[in-house]
């Protein structure tokens, strides 16, 4: 079955880029443009995987991950962070918030696809 992925990023070009490259790899991509929007889309869609940026207006990635992870139906949903940041401090924060993995931007489409398959059976 086609995996449904919600990507949350405040940059339109990044959303389009993710969508274009992941759609090609056979994933169904839905997008949201900030944490708040992402949370509501999460509830609407119940995707197989959430990919989120960290720095976003309204609700940032950490808050989004915490909120999603706090909902029982999403306890097992893999969440990948896709961010330009790479400090260990930020990664640790993301992990304690409940992120499954961290991918540093810019992403290589094939590697991103591989990473997705690693968390999303």
């Amino acid at each position, binding site marked *: 079955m*086609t*995996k449904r992925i919600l990507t949350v990023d*405040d*940059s*339109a*070009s*990044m959303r*389009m*880029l993710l*969508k*274009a490259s992941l*759609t*090609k*790899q*056979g994933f*169904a*991509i*839905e*997008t949201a443009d900030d944490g708040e929007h992402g949370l509501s889309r999460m509830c609407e869609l119940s995707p197989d995987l959430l990919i989120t*940026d960290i*720095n*976003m*207006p309204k609700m940032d990635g950490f808050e989004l991950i915490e909120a999603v*992870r706090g909902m029982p139906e999403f*306890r*097992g*949903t*893999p*969440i*990948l962070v896709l*961010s*330009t*940041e*790479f*400090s*260990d401090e930020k*990664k*640790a924060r993301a*992990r304690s918030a*409940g*992120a*499954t*993995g*961290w*991918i*540093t*931007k*810019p*992403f*290589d489409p094939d*590697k*991103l*696809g*591989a*990473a997705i*398959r*690693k*968390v*999303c*059976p």
Partner: protein
Amino acid sequence: MSDDLDDIQAIFFEECNEGLAVAEAGLSTMADGDTSADVIAGVFRAVHSIKGGAGAFGHEALQSFSHIFENLLDEVRAGRIEPTADTCKNMLLAFDVLSDHVQAAQGFVAVPDDAAMLATLEALLAEGSGDAPAGDAAASPEASARAAEGEADEFGFMPVVVDIEDLDQEPDAFVDLGDGDAQESAADAGWSIRFAPSRDAMANGSEPLLVLRELERMGGEVVGVETAPLPPLRELDPEAAYFTWFVSVPATVTRSDIEEAFDFVAPDSGIDIVEGVAPSAPESEPELQPEPAPEPALEADEKSAASDAAPSTPPVENIPPAAAAKAAPPAPPAEAKAIEPPQNIRVDVSKLDMLLNLVGELVIRNSILADRLDSADQQRVELPELARLTREIQDNVMSLRAQPIRQAFSRVPRMLRELCSATNKDVVLEVSGEATEVDKSVIEKIGEPLTHMIRNAVDHGIEGTEERVAKAKPAQGNLKLSAEQRGARIFLRVADDGRGIDRERVLAKAVEKGIVASDATLSDEEIDNLICAPGFSTAETISSISGRGVGMDVVRSNVEALGGRIEISSTPGKGTTFTMILPLTLAILDGMVVRLCGQRYVLPLSNVVETVQPEPGQMRPVANSSEVIDMRGTYVPVKRLSELFQLPPADREDEDSVVIIVETDAGNVGLMVDTIEDRREVVIKSLDQNLYPIRGLGGATILGDGSIALILDIEALVASANSPSKFVLKGMAA
């Protein structure tokens, strides 16, 4: 895909420009002293997004510069570096370099030399908070290189490297596969991997079996499982991981590929990757399982199904991407259209220009119909309706071309910073009215005159700090840049609070250069206008800033070529204001057609306040052949257009003429003409393609009967009427 990418990249550059605007506004706010968290976070986010996209689209220079800049902003955001005035200033300079990088990424300019700026940023980072940021900065090139490779990062995962000797001494870390298997593994000298997921491995949506599946996809094989830690069923935590897995992977797989499989494994899991040795089981190892047992966890059906299938059959997702894409691709884009709200389309400007020309023709044809059909026929063919539609089309076409003047203003802050550092002056910029919309053609053409006026203001107008303090002025100079729309005209002002025009020197210079006769007596205003005379430059020495051989005369002719004009007002010691008065559009004008001595002229309707047919006695002569008209008790000066144009005096009574009251900068003025013919839209045809710009004339137009009428530039007419030339302006176009 490449077309898609180009489109996405175009959006990225639009975002870059938005981001740059946000960053610049934020940094300016910070430089002004407001360093609140929101402001800093806004700047950080903008730079961060630019960096992200830069990497995605392979703009490495932009990416690495924005990376360092972002690091600094991050330190400021975290409070580890104080946003002092000096730091803010440096960040603004860094912003300038960042803008250059964005320009370069678009191929507009060469990649800037950012070495000096990078050094400054690194130094700021280093001095910021002792070791930590310095370390960060030192680590960053490596990290950005890693980022540039697009490699997935991991959660502080540290592969444990184990020596072969150690293994011999500690064989109990590995599963004994039995002789046959061991021989085989040793023969191809593959990898032996021990993977002991932490108890909480499955928290955060991680699934250890997926790692095993990934290893199998590389050709790996599970060769053993240690199940000893599995507790009695009653104590079993269904969400915990208990097993340790032993996997052999062929030698053809690289270590980094194997490490990547563990990217998302929790850091407290045990992972050993050892090369070229047959895994050997601990003596105590009780069972040997050729296939991984289903995880004890109560996972979703789908997951356990996948893990069951894993050892023997390739996982479902391992279908080659192309095949998978075939299975389900087109649906998502279709859905996406419904979600993403504003749709934009990029259009070649030349197409808009063509459209505008056609609309111009349509307007003229409308006038022709209106002229040739009597009013009953006009009604019968619904000409008024056609005119209304034409008008609407025209408004819409114009609005397509209208853009906020912000675009022309956006370069000013940077220019000012550079000017300030070149002249060692301290000037603060105030901008207003940047949302005023103007036709694209106008925006394109005001850049150069604007630049020149600002250079002029900083170089000649505003004094150095010491001089200002000595004059009891605020130490910091002030430059106001404003735009406002008045009717069909746009007023652009550049006002400084500097020393004002030194009239004595200007006059002396003008006499010296032979621009003015030595015995001429000129008003202050006339002297101020001399700086626009050709070949005039007041700078004692040619400075690198404004002395480029281009003077205000060129600015003036550029502005006049746009159908605009420049006004200068100056107060010695207080400052100078340059005002550019420009048409909103260079194409179409709402006009009033008047007749004078048998000729027709068009007045821009936007200037017209009212029209009066003078009653006997309403016109009154005042001193020096001037006249006023009594408008309900207030007196408005009246100019006879025939006199301004030096036409033969009309043989008619004032009472048969019409006075059109127009609004000008100098207040309301009445213009006397013979009759008013019509009110209509006219398509402006520029005169300066064939003639020098003529003061007082804004262009020409073709009327409905095919005849030509001149369009009057009221402001210029009234201004020249007020100050008839008493001196020679050599070489002036007019």
